[in-house]
C-alpha cells in the first residue's frame, strides 16, 4: 500500500479532489484534453501530474496516456497501444466512416486551404462542402447518389445531417469546441490532428495505395474479390 500511495500520490492532492473525477470521466469517454480556455484547469492538472497519471492508467486500466504537440497545441488522451489492444478491446469504439470522412475534410480545409482562421460558422462550412469543385461531387454521390444539380431537399438534408452529426461527435471527442453562446460557431482544437496520427501510415503511403488500387482496378475492372467473414 505504501508503494501504491507513492505511485499515485497525485490522488491525494487538492487539485485531484477538485478535478480528477472530471478528467478521468473525460478521458474514459474518449475525450481529448488540451491547453484551451475551456479545458485549461484540467489540462494543467494532467500536465502537472503527467507521469503519475500515465502510470495510473497503465497499471490499473492497461491503457496509455498520450501527450502530443507542444505549448498551446499540446493535448492528452487515452489510447490502446499494441500491447493492450487485445486486453481492452471491449473499451474501443470505432470512428465511423462518416465521421472519418468529415474529419479529414475539416482538417484539409482548415490546415491546407486555410479557409477558416478562427471560428467556423456551421452553415458556411456546409455550404463550402457543397460547393467546392474538388470534392462536392464525391459528397453528393456518397450521401445522395446524385449530382449536386439533381439533389432534392432530402439529399441536401442528408448532407447537412451528416455534417452536424459528425461535428457533434467531434465535440464529444474534444476535437472541436462549440461557442457556448452560439451553437452554430465552432473552433477546431489542436487534438483534431489525432485523426492524421491515426491515419499517418496511410497518408505517408498514399501514392502506393493509389497505385495498388489502380492496379487492382485494371486487373479486375473495378471488382474486388469477395472476402469471407469479417476481416477485423
Amino acid at each position, binding site marked *: 500500500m505504501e508503494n501504491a500511495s507513492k505511485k499515485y500520490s497525485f490522488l491525494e492532492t487538492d487539485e485531484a479532489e477538485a478535478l480528477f473525477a472530471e478528467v478521468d*470521466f473525460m*478521458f*474514459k*469517454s*474518449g475525450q481529448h484534453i488540451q491547453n484551451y480556455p475551456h479545458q485549461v484547469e484540467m489540462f494543467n492538472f494532467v500536465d502537472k501530474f503527467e507521469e503519475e497519471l500515465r502510470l495510473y492508467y497503465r497499471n490499473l*486500466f492497461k*491503457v496509455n496516456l498520450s501527450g502530443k504537440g507542444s505549448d498551446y497545441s499540446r493535448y492528452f*488522451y*487515452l*489510447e*490502446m497501444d499494441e500491447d493492450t*489492444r487485445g486486453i*481492452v478491446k471491449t*473499451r*474501443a*469504439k*470505432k*470512428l*465511423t*466512416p*462518416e465521421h*472519418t*470522412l468529415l474529419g*479529414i*475534410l475539416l*482538417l*484539409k480545409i482548415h*490546415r*491546407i486551404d486555410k479557409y477558416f482562421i478562427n471560428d467556423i460558422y456551421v452553415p458556411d462550412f456546409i455550404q463550402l462542402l457543397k460547393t467546392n469543385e*474538388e*470534392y462536392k461531387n*464525391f*459528397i453528393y454521390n*456518397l*450521401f*445522395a*447518389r446524385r449530382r449536386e444539380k439533381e439533389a432534392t*431537399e*432530402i*439529399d441536401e*438534408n*442528408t448532407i447537412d*445531417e*451528416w455534417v452536424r452529426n459528425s461535428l457533434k461527435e467531434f465535440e464529444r*471527442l474534444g476535437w472541436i469546441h462549440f461557442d457556448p453562446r452560439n451553437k452554430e460557431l465552432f473552433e477546431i482544437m489542436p487534438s483534431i490532428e489525432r485523426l*492524421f496520427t*491515426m*491515419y499517418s501510415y*496511410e*497518408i*505517408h503511403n*498514399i*501514392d502506393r*495505395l*493509389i497505385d*495498388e*488500387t489502380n492496379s487492382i482496378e485494371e486487373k479486375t475492372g473495378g471488382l*474486388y474479390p469477395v472476402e469471407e467473414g469479417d476481416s*477485423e
Partner: protein
Amino acid sequence: MEQLSLIPPALRTSRPLHFPKILRERYNLLVPRQEDGLIVLAIFQKVRAGIIERSFPERIIVDTIKQVLNELGQGSQRGEETQKYDETIHRLLRHFIDKNIEDKSYQLSTYGENFCDMLEREVHTAINPSQIQKTFNDLVMLLALKLESLEDFRHWYLTQFFKHKADISAQLRALQAQIEDTVDQLNDLVKNEHDNFREMLIGCEALLDRIKEQADKLSSAFSSKDDIKQLMDDADLGVEFEFREMKRDVRGYFKDIEGRLINVSHTIDRIKPKVNKLYNDFEKRDYDRKIESFLIYMLKNSSSKFFRTKKLKDRKVHEVEVFLPKNIREKDLYSDRSRITGIDYMQLLEPPPITLQTLTWDQDDLSRQADLRRQYLAREKRIEDWFNIITADIEKKKEINFSDYYYQIMYKDNDFEEAIKEATLVLKEFTKNPNYEVTVSEEFNLDPKHPHIGIWKMQVKSIAS
C-alpha cells in the same frame, strides 16, 4: 567603412580635391554606361572563347550591340537602329575599341581588355585562403624591413599594403557575392515552384556550408594581421605624425576586414535557420499534398448503402451507411463510458429505430365494433336507471322483491345480461349498506313468459330508522 585613398592620410585633409582635367572631361567615356560596358565585356568573352577572332569586322560589334540591347529590354524602333549603333561604336572607339584603318577591322583596346579583366576578377574572384596566407606573410616580412625610416614605411604603405589589400578585399567581396547568390537562389526557390525543390535546397545548404568553411579559413589566414599590428606598435617611428596616421589607416583597414568576416559568419548563421524552415515547409508541403491525395482517395473510393427515408423532427433524410475503401480500416478510439454510467451511452442517445407496421383497417368490422361499444354504453346507462328506480321504490315501499324488477327488465329491455348485471349490482350495493337488509331464499320466482329462467327470491328491506 572607411574609404581608402592613394593619397596618404597625412596629405588628405590639408589639400583641396584635384582631378586631372582630362579625367574630368573624359570620365563618362572611361567609365562606360551599362550597355557599353556589357557590349565590351561580351566581345571580350567572345574573343576569349574563340567564337570570334581577336580582330573582327564592324558587323560583330553591331550584332553584339543588338544582343545586349535585347537582353536589357532596350530594343530601338525601326529607323533608329543604324544611328544608335553608329553612336555606340563611336563612343566605344574613344577608349575601348581600336580600329585598324588599313583593313577596317576592329579589336579591343588594352584599356578595354583591362577593364573586362578587372570586372571579371571583381565578380568571379576565386576564394583562395592559402594565397591570402602567403600575401600576409609577404606583407609581414616586408614590413619588418621597412620600419627603419618613415620613407621606407611610406613605400611599404603605398606599394605593398595598397597592392595586397585589393586582393584581400576582393576575397571578402567574393565571399559576400557567394552569399548573395545563394540568398537569390533561396528566394527563387521560395517564390517559384521547382520540381527539384529538395535537391536545390540541398545545393544551397551545401553552398552555405562551403562559404562558412571558406570564411573560417580566411579568418585563420588573416591572423597574420596581428603580427603587422604588433610590428607597427613596436616601431620607433611613433613620434612621426604621418606614421601614426598611416598606422591608424592600416589598423582601421584590418578592423574593417575583421568586422566583415564576422558579418559573413553571422549572415550565414541567420540564413541557416531559414534554410531549415524551408526544409520543414517542404516536408509540410509534401505532407499536405499527401493529405489532399488521401482525402480524394477516401472520398472517391468510399461507398454507401441507402436504406429507407428517415423522418426527423422537422425534415426527412436518407438513412445512409458509408463504407471506407476496402484497404482502409476504421480506427479505434478508446471509450469506456458505458462502464462508468452503467448505461449504454450511445443507445441512450440513439434508441433503436421503431419498426412501423402497415395496418389495413376493416371498415365493416370497425362499425360493428362501434355498435357493440354503443350497445354496451346504453346497457350501462339502463342498469344505472333501473338501480335508481329500485332504490327509490325501497325508500317508498320500505321493502321490495327484486325478482319483480328482474322480470320487468326482461319484459321491457329483453336483455338477459342486463338483468343479471342489475341483480349483481343490487346485491352488492345493498348488502354492504347497513341501512338495508337483503334476504335471499332458495325459493324460485318464475315467470310464464320466460319458462326457461328462474331466480331465487331476493328481498331488499330498508331498516333505516
